[in-house]
């Protein structure tokens, strides 16, 4: 059999075609032994809590005394409750700030940085823009709460340039609280998007740009004809990660507004927390959590599909 190989390296087929028998079985056991610890952790800390959440969602339970089975009552209440429904609308609105804005700005900054990719300036701007990614979200929330307070830097700058009429308590105003929370999220997400897209751009064959230029394409045409289509996969990752961050947001909102003023910045993550720990309606909180997980999947899976198919 060995003589049959004539040239080249041993391919994948060859490895796969080794004779079945004891070796193969032993390898199977080794593989299993390697997988088991991770699988156990996954089952105990991911699947089991998930299953328990589904179970709790069918009960009326305060977390301590005996629970009563209520069927799908907790789920039907979700649709009648304007507060829970409003929190979902807020989360959907946050997608604009947490996802669209950073992806668009990320594209723009990455396209600019690529032009002077080897210079020191590119390194500095990459580092600066990526910095928010390494700061804990809670710290980012606290920092921006100071910046956007009534005496904070944002209002000081506005006053300095004579825009006194615009100053306000950004996080305490019904009109501006949600966008203000959105700004924090956009600031955090921008670095990741920029870096991912920049990495994607460096993979693009320079010959393509050369050809485009020979055909007389300008920078804008180049961007839309070559850069953007080549980044489909990276864009998919960016959009998926940021949309999930928008929908599942908790820390930034909890630190900066705690859902207020009124319920202007209430998001499902916070509502689940309030229901479970303050109202002690564990069943209702679980139902909202399950329904919300389904909603997240319903939004994220099509994005994954769209960006993956274009790859083929």
């Amino acid at each position: 059999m060995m003589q049959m190989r004539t040239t080249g390296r041993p391919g994948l087929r060859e490895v796969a075609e080794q004779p079945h028998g004891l070796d193969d079985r032993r390898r199977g056991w080794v593989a299993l032994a390697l997988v088991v610890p991770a699988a156990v952790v996954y089952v105990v800390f991911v699947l089991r809590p998930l299953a328990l959440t589904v179970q709790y969602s069918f009960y009326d339970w305060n977390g301590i005394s005996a629970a009563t089975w209520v069927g799908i009552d907790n789920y039907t209440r979700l649709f009648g409750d304007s507060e829970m429904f409003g929190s979902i609308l807020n989360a959907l609105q946050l997608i604009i700030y947490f996802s669209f804005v950073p992806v668009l700005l990320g594209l723009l900054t990455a396209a600019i940085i690529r032009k002077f990719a080897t210079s020191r300036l590119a390194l500095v701007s990459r580092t600066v823009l990526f910095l928010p990614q390494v700061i804990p979200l809670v710290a980012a929330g606290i920092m921006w709460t100071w910046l956007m307070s009534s005496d904070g830097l944002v209002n000081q700058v506005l006053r300095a340039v004579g825009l006194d009429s615009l100053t306000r308590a950004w996080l305490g105003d019904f009109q501006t609280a949600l966008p203000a929370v959105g700004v924090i999220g956009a600031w955090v997400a921008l670095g990741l998007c920029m870096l991912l897209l920049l990495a994607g751009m460096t993979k693009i064959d320079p010959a393509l740009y050369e050809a485009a230029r020979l055909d007389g394409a300008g920078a804008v045409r180049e961007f839309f004809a070559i850069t953007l289509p080549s980044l489909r996969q990276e864009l998919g990752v960016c959009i998926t990660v940021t949309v999930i961050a928008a929908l599942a947001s908790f820390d930034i909102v909890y630190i900066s507004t705690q859902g207020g003023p009124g319920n202007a910045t209430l998001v499902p993550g916070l509502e689940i927390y309030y229901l479970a720990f303050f109202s002690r309606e564990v069943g209702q909180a679980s139902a909202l959590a399950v329904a919300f997980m389904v909603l997240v999947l319903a939004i994220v899976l099509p994005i994954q599909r769209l960006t993956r198919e274009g790859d083929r």
Partner: protein
Amino acid sequence: MSTKGRRAAAATSLCLAGLLAVTACSAPGGGTTDTDDSATGGSGSATGDVTATCGTDPVTLSAYIETGFPMPKDLFDEFTKQYPNVTFDVREDQFAVITQNAPRVLADDPPDLMRLPQMSELAKDGLLLDLDGYASSMGWDQWPASQLVQLRVDDDGARGEGPLYGMGLGFSMTGVFYNKDLAAQIGVTEPPATLAELDDMMQKAKDAGITPAAQFNGGATGGLAFPLQGLMASYGDTTEINDWIFQRSGATIDTETNLQAAEHLKSWIDAGYFADDINSLDYSMMMSRFMEGESLLMFNGDWESGNLDAQMPGKVGFFLMPPLEEGGDLGAMSAPLTFGIGAQAEHPDCAAFFFDWAATNEEARTIQVEVGGSHPLGLADAFMPEVDADSVTAQTLAAGATIGEKDGAMDFIANATGAIYAKGWTPNLQKLVAGQQDPAGMLADVQKQYESEIGG
């Protein structure tokens, strides 16, 4: 694609099988009900006369207290000094954390002494020790009944009647602090005697370019509940408000006099008497603005008296929310700084002895007044430490005596149910500021929230 499809199907069925395997188990909460039953059944309660003592053997009392308030720890230190066999194992958290942790902590690892949030649900669930036995053996039932009435919970979870489930390390009271210098600046030398005079005082401050009140009302803190409840007491009867807080059947917050109070508060908002960024101010920001002399008034409680005496000696005055007409009825939010003993706590007798000591020992009472700024519990003629007459602590203590005479003490409307503050008052008060809610709508909405909670 087909391999992918098969893999996805396999993964899905695996997940479903896992879900079904777990959901096939018994209903949640079953495990703890056994212990609950025994607790509510009275085996964990101190029924009959029980002698509370710490004995002479070494005892370590576990205590779960609120962070940021030095008074309980000072009491612990003094107690250890007097009873060296007793030491304390202290865990501290913010009040909001204690609120959400209370049921779990009391069920899983019951402390001997615990700062309690709203307690009726905890008592109903059998998580707190019934203290009636100690009350009769140690004479707590000889104290003015109003001191402990808020700590009684009946079988249905309604407060005001039934067994005693908590004790106070002093009781605190709210009113209005004012900056004497700023008041003098606008020509006010005496506290207002009527609501109209208070209105006038705030208008004068506003005209002079001083923020009348930088009350906190941002995030999860509906601090306008303080002036609102004061106004409710000026317009109406405190008994009705207590009935509502205690969850007496048929009680409502949506009454004619409460509507007048809410409308009065709204008139203050509309007149610009509060800071314009009130919906983003938290408690500490309010404190710092008041202490830096940026606002004339602060609707707050006597737990800050000691602090204000230290930070702004001689510069702060205190008055109760004035009545509609001079000499009229007065009311104030006044509640014990509630502590309880876990139903399954390890050293309940020693914990109860500590409570009794805190109310009767002269050193302990002095600490409560000087450090906590609060009036200690106990007999009406019990020892009281000498307090500097110029201090704001002296004024809050005097106000407490007045409220006692007028029988105007109410619990906090924020304490009616576990979530009424977070889900009812706070969002509605913030909307009231922003003009997105009117006084009538606010009361109706809070009442709806209340009924849905105590109903389900």
